[in-house]
Every structure is written in C-alpha cells, then in structure tokens.
C-alpha cells in the first residue's frame, strides 16, 4: 500500500519534472544540431578491411607534430591503417606545384588514400586523394587556434613602469605633507614668561636644522617602507600575470591540439563515412583527484585540487563533469559539478552518502545514488533546481547505483543487489518497469556492476566477477552476453561516442591504468601513465569553442 503510494507520488513528481524541462530547454547555450551529412561518393576499399592511408609531411613549424597527431589519431581509430614512411622518401614523392601525385607508385605500395595538409592563414587546407581513382576526393580549410605570444619578457618592465609613475605622484604628495610639518617646526614658537607675558624664542638656527632633519628622516623612512611593499606588489602582480599567461598558453595548446583532432575526425569521415572520435576527452580518478586527458593520452591534468573524489561523469555537452566528493570529518559524500575550462565547481546534492552521479541525456537532470540506513536508491534532481528530488528505485534495503541512461533518455540501467549479488537491471526514466538485464543462475555467485549504456543504444557494458573481474557487454535485443577482456583485472567500462571503443581500468600492464579497447578488433592501448588510475568516463564529441 505504502509502496504503491510512493510509486504514484514518484510518478507525479517525475511528470511535474518533465513539464519543468522547458526551463532547461530554453537554455540558449545548448549545442546546435549537427549538420546532416549529405550524399557523397566515398573512398572505395574492400569492406571488412582497414584501408592503408598515407599522411604526407606538412610544411610548417610545428608541421611535423601536426602530421604526427593526425597520423596517430587515424591509427587509434582502428578503422584505417596509417602507413609510416620516413619523411625524406615522402618529400620526394610530393608533387611540385601544379603536378599530380604519381598514383601508380602509391598504388604499388598498397596505399588507398593520401592525406595532405598545407598551412594557410589561421589553419590548414586538408585534402584527401583517392589513389585507386587517381583524383582528389575531398578538400577543406580548417581553422586551427594560434598560440598567443609570450609576454613574460616585457611583463615586469611594464608593471615597473606603471608603478614608478604612480609612485612619483604618491611621493610628491607625501613630501608636501612632511614639508608643511617641517615649516611649522621652523616657525618661532610663542612662550610665556613667569609673569604671563608672551615672548618669542629666537633660536632659528637650531629649529631650522631640526626641521630639516625631521623632513629628511621621515621621507627616508617612508621611502624605505614603500620600496619594500612596492617591490612585493610588483612581484605579486608579475606572478599573477605570468600564471594567467601560462594558463592561457596551456588552454591555447589544448585548443590547438583539439582543432587538429577535429581534422583527423573529418578525414576519417571522408575515408570511412563515419567521423572519428579523436576530439574527445576521458575523465578519470587518480590519487583522489578528478583528472582529464585527451583521447590520445596528451594534456593529462587534474581538475579538482584536493580531497577524495569519485565517479566522474561527463555532461552531454562535454564542457562539465559531475562527480561525488568525500567531505571532511566523516560528513559523508556529496555530488558536485565542475566546469572543465574554468575549474569552477558547485554543489548539486546534500550531504550523506550521495554517489555515482550521471547527467540525463539532455543535461537537465542528475541521477545519482543516495544511501541511508534503509538502503541505497536512485534519486533524480534538476540541475537548476536542486530542491526537487525524486526517488526512482525502491530497493527495500538493497543497494542500487551506477545509473546510466539509454541514449534516447527513456531508460536507465543500474546495478542492484535486490537479488543478493549485484546484477544489472533497467527501469524507465520515471522509475517504473523494472527489468533484469543480465541473466543469472540463482544461488550462483555472479557479481555484475558498473554498467555503461553504449551511445548507439545497442548494448550495455559492465564488469562481472568470474573469480577475477572482467569486462563484458550484453546486447539489449537478444540479451546475449559477450566477454571482452581476459588479461589482468578489467573494470569500470565507459563507451566512446562511436559505440565501438571502451575506456577500461585494467591491471594488464602491472599497475592499474586506464586502457582503450577496440571492441571490434580486440586491440588495447594504454591511455594513462598514473598507477592506480580508475573510474574513467569518456566524453561526447567536444564542440569547438566559439
């Protein structure tokens, strides 16, 4: 009875929340719809193979790194095979102005396509040549962020210049005040004699010298004090600006690499018909801090500064991350959100046991797991309305957590220990229609947790205990489970936007690190170099900064 009442209440609350979505939908910062890919004739190559692609040298500094980045992205895509030839050979094969590539030569090397990037103002003109047809297939100009100049050298001079002008004005006014006091000292004082008659003390020489000494000493003391504090102030300002400068350079460098990753992703679309996933980042936890790293393992940096945080998960716009953080003094954990660019964070949930948060597919809600003495259950809260909390599961004292939305936002998969050992279940987004997703034999210990729904909606990846822990995926349609890993212990899978690659924390290299698995070829590559890295989350495609 009570249960039914709660379910109805939850349904009403969810319905109210869905009506409230409009406020969130009015948010003008939501991403514009992606342009629809038009009909085009792609590169022709035997299906089921990865075409060999040659990335030609790029004439510019840092052109070599441009080529290296694109080449590596294509390699990491697992859809094409970049052919690595030494630069001298390739320069010899590059046609001079107006001439065509020697296609038959490339064809004899087994090359299917040639990628050529040429520097232009503000970026690169990138072209793809189809070797078998012998002509240019695609060409486009890409804007690539420029690095800002280094202002360190002139920084202290310019601050010192500004400061000295200001100090001169200040010095003059202090001098005027002291001078006035000294002048007063010079004036002969009036004194009274024993009978009460006034007389003037005539000792001007002594008074004069006293006043002069006073003026000099006071001014010298002021100058000395001032010098110390001015030097400190110049140093402080210089340090602050230098830090800002270096932050600007770091973010520019990150932006520059990302714009090169976008070139790779587009080149991949020209070749295979599907855009790549190089312009993405992966969040993970190391040493209690939430860190982010580019998909190629570069720009690895900490986002949170202190404390112990867990379970980072990306916003669908890939500009912020939600996570749970332990509070000081045994006050439990709370859900927080942090902006990746600015590092600004804010609190989303109350205190207590609040863990495993994820954004809804529209980014308007956060679903997380909240624990109490009577079990741990899924809650849903509006991002802009943290007081409106709705309960989604009723586990009767069991543990329910690690929610993950289906890409259409209609369903949530999560782990639940309601049948003793944790298993993966699904519910509708309003909390109704509970279904068991991972079949199990009652009584047999088969622990399953950490589900992640693939962005194409086809499958859910999770970790399963068969002695040790391994990553599996289950097809939504036929409920057919498939084991993906076997070497070392493998946990916490998170899907890339292509629904093909997974980030996994794995001990296959000795220590626990984040690795990338291509579920089609079974190829693994190590992403992080931080022993103990865990709890990874793969972002959606990063949209270019305006």
């Amino acid at each position, binding site marked *: 009875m009570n249960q039914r009442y709660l379910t109805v209440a939850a349904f009403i609350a969810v319905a109210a929340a869905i009506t409230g979505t409009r406020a969130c939908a009015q948010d003008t910062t939501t991403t514009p719809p992606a342009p629809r890919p038009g009909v085009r004739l792609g590169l022709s190559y035997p299906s089921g193979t990865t075409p060999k692609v040659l990335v030609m040298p790029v004439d510019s500094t840092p052109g070599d790194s441009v080529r290296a980045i694109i080449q590596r992205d294509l390699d990491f895509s697992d859809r094409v095979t970049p052919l690595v030839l030494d630069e001298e050979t390739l320069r010899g094969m590059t046609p001079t102005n107006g001439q065509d590539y020697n296609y038959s030569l490339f064809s004899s090397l087994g090359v299917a396509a040639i990628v050529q990037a040429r520097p232009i103002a503000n970026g690169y003109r990138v072209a793809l040549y189809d070797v078998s047809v012998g002509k240019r297939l695609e060409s486009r100009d890409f804007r690539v962020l420029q690095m800002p100049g280094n202002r360190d050298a002139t920084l202290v001079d310019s601050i010192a210049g500004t400061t000295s002008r200001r100090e001169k004005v200040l010095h003059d006014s202090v001098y005027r005040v002291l001078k006035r006091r000294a002048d007063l000292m010079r004036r002969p004082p009036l004194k009274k004699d024993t009978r009460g008659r006034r007389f003037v003390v005539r000792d001007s020489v002594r008074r004069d010298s006293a006043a002069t000494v006073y003026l000099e000493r006071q001014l010298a003391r002021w100058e000395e004090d001032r010098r110390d504090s001015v030097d400190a102030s110049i140093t402080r300002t210089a340090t602050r600006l230098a830090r800002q400068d270096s932050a600007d350079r770091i973010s520019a460098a990150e932006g520059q690499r990302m714009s090169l990753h976008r070139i790779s992703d587009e080149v991949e679309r020209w070749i295979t018909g599907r855009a790549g996933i190089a312009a993405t980042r992966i969040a993970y936890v190391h040493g209690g801090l939430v860190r982010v790293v580019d998909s190629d393992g570069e720009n690895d940096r900490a986002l949170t500064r202190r404390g112990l945080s867990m379970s980072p998960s990306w916003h669908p716009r890939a500009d912020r991350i939600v996570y749970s953080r332990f509070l000081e003094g045994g006050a439990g954990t709370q859900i927080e959100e942090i902006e990746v660019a600015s590092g600004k964070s804010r609190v989303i949930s109350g205190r207590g046991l609040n863990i495993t948060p994820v954004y809804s597919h529209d980014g308007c809600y956060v679903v997380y797991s909240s624990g109490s003495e009577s079990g741990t259950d899924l809650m849903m809260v509006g991002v802009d309305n943290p007081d409106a909390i709705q309960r989604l599961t009723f586990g009767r004292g069991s543990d329910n957590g690690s929610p993950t939305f289906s890409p259409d936002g209609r369903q949530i998969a999560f782990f639940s220990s309601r049948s003793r050992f944790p298993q993966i279940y699904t519910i509708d987004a309003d909390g109704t229609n509970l279904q068991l997703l991972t*079949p199990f034999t009652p009584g047999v210990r088969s622990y399953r947790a950490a589900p992640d729904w693939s962005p194409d909606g086809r499958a859910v990846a999770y970790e399963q205990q068969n002695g040790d822990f391994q990553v599996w995926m289950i097809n939504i349609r036929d409920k057919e489970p498939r084991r993906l890993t076997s070497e070392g212990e493998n946990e916490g899978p998170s899907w890339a936007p292509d629904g093909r690659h997974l980030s996994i924390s794995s001990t296959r290299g000795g220590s626990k690190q984040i690795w990338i698995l291509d579920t089609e070829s079974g190829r693994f590559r190590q992403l992080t170099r931080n022993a103990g890295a865990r709890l990874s989350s793969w972002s959606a495609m990063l949209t270019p900064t305006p």
Partner: protein
Amino acid sequence: MLSIGRAVGIAVIAAAVVAGCSRKPANRPSPSRINTDSLLREQARQDSISRANAARAAAAAAAGVAAAAGPPTNAPVSPSERTIIGSTVYFDLDESALTEDARSALEGKAPVLLRHPNLRIRITGHADAQGSDEYNLALGLRRAAEAKRYLSALGVPENRVEIVTMGEERAAVQGNTEEAYALNRRAEFEVIAGG
C-alpha cells in the same frame, strides 16, 4: 480432368506449405529467462526470516546487555571501556550480515553505551578492494547500518549512533591477499561526543 484424389493431394501440400511458412522457425536455444518477481519475492522472504531470527536473538541478548550495563553514570569513560567501544567488527565476503563474532562484539559495546548516556559514536563501514569501487561504497554503508541496527535492538537509542561509509577507499591493510581482504571488510567505531 483432374482426379479428385490428385486435387486433394495438391490441396494438402499447399496447406502444408502455408502452415510451414506461418510456423515459427525451429526453436533456437533462447537465453534463459528468469522470473525476477519470484526471485525478488524469495529474496524478500529469506531477508524477513533472517531479520526475524536476528530480532529474536537480539531480544534475548538485550536483557543480558541491560543487566551488564547497570545504572547510567556520569563517570568518565574508562580506558578499558574505550577499547571495547573502539574495537573493529569484521564481515564475510560481500556480506553485511553480522557474524557470531560481530554480534558478540556489539553485545560488548552496548552496555558501555547504555552506562554512558552522553556517549555518541560514529560507525564507518569499509569494504575490501575486490569489485566495483562504487558498489563497495554502498556495501560499506550497509555494513555500518547493520551494526547500528543491532545496537539499537540491544537498546542503544538510534540518535546516538551515526553511520558513514568509506567503501574500499581506506584500507586497514594494504595488499591483494585473502588475509588483507578479510581485515579490510570491517566496521570501525569512534567516539564523537560525550567521551
């Protein structure tokens, strides 16, 4: 002219073909279906049986605890009482149910808490390093909650006991051995006020 027999034969064949098409393809071994409802009901039944048993055991123990406690006092907590309160309670793999040892440890703590009415404690649940870091947070909380529930069955007011979890984040013993795991599946007790 067609013989009737032949016509009937054709009709029979045609019917068989139609039937063959409409019939579903041969049964493939489908993934085993599990009746979640009956499982959940069974689990709930088991839970309620063990809860009832626990309640009976607790009721029996509660009288002994009350006798051991004696009247409430304002005297400071003695070092030996402090040791009793601070002793750690251990759990089985992936279990929050209290073992025999855990129950008797809590039956030792309860009289101290009853004797010192101002004493407030915090129970922190922990898990070993095996399994999902996130599930282990919930498991740790369930362990702390189970310890608290037994204390309250023994007569300790609920508002004097706080519970938190650290999951597998604060191992008592480092290492990936069964010995280390067993020592890390635990609930720790600390005095937060009145001591």
